[in-house]
């Protein structure tokens, strides 16, 4: 369910990462390669451009229109460039119990907050968790909750673990808040007797860094009442990345250019965005990866989440 794409690197036309690659995020709405479900419940993106007016403020876009039919999105993608972005297509169960509304679209970003968050996962029995999670919300954060997704609550709890939810935060502060958030969720799950597999692949950014998480609570504990979901929970939810100097079209194929140790451009995605995945790497399970700048150079770091 859901597909996400994050990019940090030299300015690139949005069209070149959203539409052009052979397994682009937009294509994954109707033809994902590593997911059984379609992703038809809306599109959203948070886009920073260092050369735009007020570069610290991102451009955000959310639409319930199917992204491959969305002329506004295509037109915008052909005009706008980005150096940091997170884009998301939402996938829900294809039945009338799913709530397909605009306030459920990722990436979430509350007014005056600098952090944005998108999610590819599913907290099982989330309805049972809300009451206990509410205790961890900061009074300045809770009034902003408008949708009914687990993702928005993860975002709200994450913001609430920061000393000042509306401030601008360092990577270290957000990493700490993230680990607190994941621990709170584990404790609330245990308190409510929720022990079924629940993946939480998270994509977080404030324009200065991208922090991604590949994590599953109670991995492998599939629901014995729901044979369809068994297939989802028998494998660890995928998350891939590729690094280089720049992302370009070479010999008709989109690929990272440059040697394998270059991290000037980093793409992270639920699945490789090209059919040829030979330059993509799977991110290790139970890990968080950060892409950040220091001394004018872009770096990545990787740490295991022993939560």
């Amino acid at each position, binding site marked *: 369910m859901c597909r996400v794409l994050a990019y940090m690197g030299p300015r690139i036309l949005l069209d070149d990462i959203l539409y052009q690659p052979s397994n682009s995020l937009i294509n994954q709405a109707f033809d994902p390669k590593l997911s059984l479900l379609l992703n038809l419940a809306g599109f959203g993106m948070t886009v920073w451009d260092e050369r735009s007016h007020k570069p610290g403020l991102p451009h955000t876009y959310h639409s319930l229109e199917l992204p491959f039919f969305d002329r506004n999105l295509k037109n915008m993608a052909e005009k706008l460039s980005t150096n940091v972005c997170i884009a998301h297509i939402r996938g829900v169960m294809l039945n009338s119990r799913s709530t397909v509304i605009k306030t459920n679209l990722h990436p979430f970003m509350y007014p005056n907050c600098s952090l944005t968050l998108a999610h590819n996962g599913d907290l099982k029995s989330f309805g049972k968790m809300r009451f206990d999670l509410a205790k961890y919300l900061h009074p300045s954060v809770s009034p902003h909750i408008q949708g009914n997704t687990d993702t928005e609550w993860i975002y709200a709890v994450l913001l609430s673990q920061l000393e000042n939810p509306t401030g601008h935060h360092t990577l270290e502060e957000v990493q700490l808040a993230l680990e607190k958030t994941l621990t709170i969720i584990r404790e609330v799950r245990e308190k409510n007797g929720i022990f079924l597999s629940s993946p939480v692949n998270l994509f977080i950014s404030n324009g200065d860094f991208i922090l991604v998480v590949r994590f599953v609570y109670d*991995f492998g*504990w*599939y629901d014995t009442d729901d044979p369809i979901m068994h297939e989802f929970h*028998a494998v660890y939810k995928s998350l891939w990345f590729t690094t280089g100097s720049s992302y370009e079209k070479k010999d008709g194929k989109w*690929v990272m250019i440059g040697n394998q140790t270059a991290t000037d451009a980093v793409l992270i995605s639920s699945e490789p965005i090209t059919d040829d995945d030979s330059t993509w790497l799977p991110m290790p399970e139970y890990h968080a990866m950060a892409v950040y700048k220091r001394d004018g150079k872009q*770096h990545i*770091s990787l740490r295991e989440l022993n939560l």
Partner: protein
Amino acid sequence: MASLSQLRIFAGISNADMQSIIPKLQSFSIAKDEVLFYHGDKGSTLYIIETGEVSVYANASGDEDILLSTIGSGAVIGEMSLIAPANRSATVKSTLPTSGWSLSCDAFDLLCRQQSLGALQILKNLALMLCERLRAMPLYTGSATQSTQPAWCFQGEAYTPDSQYNDFLQRLSFFKLFQPDEITTIMSHMKQWSIPRGQILFADGAPGKSAYLILRGGVEESVIRNGKKQQLSILGPGKIFGLLSLLDHENRYSTCTARERCLLLEMPEQAFHTLFNKADNVAFRFLQAIDLTLIEALRRASQKYRTQVIITDLLSHQ
């Protein structure tokens, strides 16, 4: 043709049983500098080189291909594609005029369905060859050859497998090839364990007395290198681990830990060999499932190794 029985993949097959295999072999011949197959091509054929020489190249995007090895008479290429067709992981090109024999996965599948004893022996030989290749993977080199750790670290009681999971067994990857009554036969050899999160199951270098199938939960496979844990894989429902020690009687080459609480099915060594050495329908499917497990482990280990090398490189350049 007479030399075929000298090849490891056909080892132990009687002349009479070879007679059912030989008609399935197709001859092939390529000129010097001709490509047998490219990296990324759909691979569904095993090749046996009788005369000549070929070079194997790894694909490195954006750069020249890397020469991995040059092999000649008697070499077997693409044995994994016999039972698990997948895209070729390398390009093979002749350096001399080359000829030999090929066996397609469809032809091999037919031999298996006809319960050819020759095919059964190929499945066994393949398991042992894959086992050796896994042990030789760079990820595992430097594994402890012996440790004082017990064969099984968990202090608890095993019990008879829980029947509430019967409907799910056929959904688990290891059991997908089996009929329900065949699963019942295999399950009669198994014991069930309920393991808490974080429990070490067995350690690198410990003796191996059983293989384990994950019914529910997740298991982490790791090694210690330079005093630091390196995660090798996270295995989920339907995956089997601990197989290699039962095949080659060597010690464990990695440490397995319950990353999440787990329900495991244990197959003791004796039960494993009873099934491994049978010659009935169950034995065919059992051997195919074992080979598929090993092929998947090998492909996973190759990808993990590549990932680790690149990530180490990336982080060391920070």
